[in-house]
C-alpha cells in the first residue's frame, strides 16, 4: 500500500512524539561526547515541524520540504543542516508525486543518505548519522517487494544495528572527534536519533 500526503504528515507527527519521548536519552548520549544539546535541539525542531504541517501541504514531497526548512531553521547545531539536508533531498526526490510507494521510500532514503554524506563529509565508520542511515538504505532496497511498512521496518532494524556499531568506533567527524579514543564506548547521538526517526516512521507505516 502506498502512502498518501496525510499519512506522511502523520508519520512526521509520530517522529516528533518519539523524539520528545527520547529527548533526555539523546541529551545524555550527547553529554558524554558532545555538548549535550542534541535531544533538546531535535525536540525543538520536530515540535516546530508538527506546527508547520498543521495545515497539511498538498503533496508528500511538500510535507517533507516543509519539514526540511523547519528543521534547518529551528534545530541549530550540526543536526540542523544535516537533518534539514536529509529531508530536503528526500523531498526533491519525491517531486510532485501524490503517493509514495515502497520503491519511492527506498529511493528517498538513499537521497537523504547522499545528502547527509555530502553535507557532513562523513562515511561509514566515522561514528555519525551515516553509520545508521547507510545500512538502513541498503536494507530498505532489499525489502522493496514487500511494501512500504516492510521497507521502513527493514531500514529501522538495520539502523538500530548500525547505531549500535558506533559504540566501538573512534569518531572522526563533529565535536566527538576531538575526544579521539576517549569517545570509544559511547553510542553516537546522531546515529541513535537517526535510528529512532526511522523506527517511528516504520511504526507509523504499519
Amino acid at each position, binding site marked *: 500500500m502506498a502512502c498518501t500526503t496525510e499519512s506522511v504528515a502523520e508519520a512526521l507527527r509520530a517522529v516528533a512524539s518519539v523524539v520528545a519521548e527520547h529527548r533526555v536519552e539523546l541529551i545524555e548520549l550527547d553529554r558524554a561526547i558532545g555538548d549535550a544539546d542534541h535531544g533538546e535541539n531535535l525536540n525543538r525542531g520536530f515540535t516546530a515541524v508538527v506546527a508547520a504541517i498543521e495545515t497539511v501541504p498538498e503533496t508528500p514531497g511538500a510535507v517533507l520540504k516543509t519539514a526540511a526548512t523547519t528543521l534547518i531553521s529551528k534545530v541549530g*547545531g*550540526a543536526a*540542523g543542516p544535516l537533518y534539514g539536508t536529509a529531508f530536503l533531498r528526500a523531498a526533491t526526490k519525491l517531486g510532485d508525486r501524490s503517493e509514495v510507494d515502497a520503491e519511492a521510500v527506498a529511493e528517498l532514503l538513499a537521497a537523504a543518505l547522499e545528502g547527509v554524506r555530502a553535507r557532513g563529509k562523513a562515511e561509514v565508520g566515522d561514528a555519525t548519522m551515516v553509520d545508521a542511515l547507510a545500512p538502513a538504505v541498503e536494507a530498505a532496497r532489499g525489502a522493496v517487494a514487500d511494501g512500504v511498512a516492510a521497507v521502513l521496518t527493514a531500514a529501522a532494524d538495520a539502523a538500530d544495528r548500525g547505531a549500535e556499531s558506533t559504540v566501538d568506533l573512534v569518531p572522526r567527524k563533529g565535536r566527538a572527534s576531538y575526544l579521539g579514543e576517549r569517545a570509544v564506548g559511547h553510542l553516537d547521538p546522531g546515529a541513535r536519533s537517526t535510528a529512532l526517526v526511522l523506527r517511528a516512521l516504520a511504526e507509523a507505516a504499519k
Partner: protein
Amino acid sequence: MSVGLVFVSHSATLAAGVAELAAQMAPDVKLVAAGGLDGGGIGTDFEAVSQAARDADSGAGVVLLYDLGSAQMTAELAVETLDGEVDAVVVDAPLVEGAVAAAVEAQGGADRAAVAAAAAKAGAQAETGASTDSGAAESVELTLRNDVGLHARPAALLVRALAGLDTEVTVRLGEQEADAHSVLALMSLGARQGDRIEVLAKGADAGTAVERVKDLVARDFDE
C-alpha cells in the same frame, strides 16, 4: 562593485570582530557578520547566513568563510538553497587570515574566484612567506617612520597600491623576504617603526610599483 564577504561564526562577537578587522583593510567591501543564534547564544542560524549572503551581494558575487564544522554545513546549505540567486561560494580557510586576505583581494577589485583563492591559500602563506626572486628591475631602500610599521592596515594599503600593476614585488627585511601582494606575508616580516626595508620590483610596471611604495612610506601610510 566588489565581491562581498560573509563571516559565519558560532559566536556573534567573533563574526563581528572578524568583520571589524577586515574592514580596516577593505573600506569599500561589503562585509557581513553572521554569527550566533537568533536571539543570542552560540550556534549558527541558517536564515541569518542566507540573508547575509544576499546582503553582501552587490552583483559581483559573495565568498563565505566560517569558523567550525557546523558553520561550514550551515554556510554550504545556505549557498545550496540560494540556488543561483546569489553567486556565492564557501571557502575552506582559516577564518581570520582568510578574511583579511579575501577582503584585501576584494578591495583590489578581484573577481569572486580570485577572492576565494586568496582566502584559501591564506593559511599556507602565513607560514611559508614568499618565495625568493632575484634579478629585480627596480629597487629602493626605505625606512618606515609610521607608528605601527608594516602591520595589518599599512600592509593592506601596500598590497592595494600594487593591485592591477604588471609587476612582481618583494619586500625584504634583513634576511627575510615577503611577497608584497600578500598582506599576511608582509605582516609576517614584522617590520616595525625605524626598520629599513628593501622593495624589489620587476616586470613592466616595476617603476610605478616602486614609486607607489615610496609614496606610501613617505606619507607614513596616511596614519
